[in-house]
């Protein structure tokens, strides 16, 4: 029972990283300035590497499949990513705001996993926490800079925040056996992480003079963790696995 719940937790974390990694990579060659092109490409590489490390834990500790098979051959409803990461890259302001909200959520999550009673996650979280600092550092710097520029720049950041926030709240959709995971000390549960995340992002939003949507009236966009996805995921999976599926047994 616990094994299934741990596998579900790891799968949703890994799927978020894989899909957002793929989305970030769509900025390669298109970034508004060269440093941003490089930043989104580097973060894509990090995310996909982190997804791979999590899929490896599934394979080695929880009788999971080969990471490549698992990443490229699954049906859409077997993916457990949240809707936030599925959305097309849109404009730079949307992608930047998504990156800011998502990476703070990850930072909070990996920080909590340093106390996890599941050793493989605990060990991995120590490694990834330091790397994620560069993601939040990058996001915070650009959010602040674009908000302080005022005018259209500020208005677009506020609009992006309003658009992304319900999607980002969907990261914390409760899982199937959360109480079991909490009691076993695997992780603190989505509700606790959500509260810590609100505190973390609010600190930056206040500095940027952005208005955080009121969590009390917010309707989080749930569904991804149950395998119900936006229409944007299927085309992404199609493209991402296209080459792999030509010959799934090929050695690279």
């Amino acid at each position, binding site marked *: 029972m616990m094994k299934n719940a741990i596998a579900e937790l790891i799968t949703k974390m890994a799927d978020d990283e894989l899909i957002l990694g793929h989305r970030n990579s769509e900025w390669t060659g298109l970034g508004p300035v060269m440093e941003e092109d*490089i*930043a989104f490409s580097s973060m894509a590489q*990090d995310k996909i*590497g*982190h997804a791979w*490390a999590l899929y490896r834990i599934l394979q080695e500790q929880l009788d999971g499949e080969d990471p490549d098979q698992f990443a490229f051959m699954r049906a859409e409803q077997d993916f457990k990513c949240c809707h936030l990461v599925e959305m097309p890259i849109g404009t730079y302001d949307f992608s930047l705001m998504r990156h800011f909200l998502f990476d703070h959520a990850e930072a909070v999550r990996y920080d909590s996993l340093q106390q996890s009673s599941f050793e*493989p996650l605990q060990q*991995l979280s120590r490694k990834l926490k330091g*790397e994620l600092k560069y993601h939040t550092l*990058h996001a915070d710097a650009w959010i602040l800079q674009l908000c302080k520029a005022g005018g259209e720049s500020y208005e677009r950041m506020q609009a992006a925040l309003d658009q992304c926030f319900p999607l980002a709240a969907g990261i914390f959709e409760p899982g199937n056996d959360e109480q079991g995971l909490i009691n076993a000390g695997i992780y603190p549960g989505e509700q606790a992480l959500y509260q810590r995340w609100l505190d973390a992002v609010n600190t930056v939003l206040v500095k940027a003079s952005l208005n955080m949507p009121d969590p009390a009236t917010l309707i989080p966009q749930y569904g991804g963790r149950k395998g119900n996805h936006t229409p944007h995921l299927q085309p992404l999976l199609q493209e991402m696995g296209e080459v792999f599926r030509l010959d799934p047994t090929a050695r690279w």
Partner: protein
Amino acid sequence: MTADNTITNVYKALEQVMDPEIPVLNVLDLGMITDVAFHDNTVQIKMIPTFAACPAISFIQEQIRKVVNRETRLPVEVSIDKTVHWHSNRLSEVAKEKLRNFGIATPQVHQGELRAEIMLNTPCPHCNSSNTYLRSPFGSTLCRAIHYCKDCGMVFEQFKPLE
């Protein structure tokens, strides 16, 4: 050949295994090797990646296997050590000297928890000035950041600090 002798030879061999992305540094300079042992006539080497998503990892593992096997004539097993994680304080002083000579600024020494301010005024590897700013925390490889030197006008890369 005794075990002690073999282990010394293994370390000598490891000095020849260079990082493909920073070819002046070997895997020992980088602090990537966590254990060398000798069991049942096999050399067992434990290593750690610098960054989790480093694409050079399997290449480096293969190089270690090849070079150590060539030098010791023994079968070699290379595995990832999950009990230790890499951080930038593991770079040796010799490694930092080599990095500077290669034109890459070195990571600041940190005390466990890394604060963003640590990367401000990173000394320029070309003119030593600290009148510099962080242009991007991401660079041409995962382990590098980009800075700009206001004194000599050069853009330079840094091997970034990692906690």
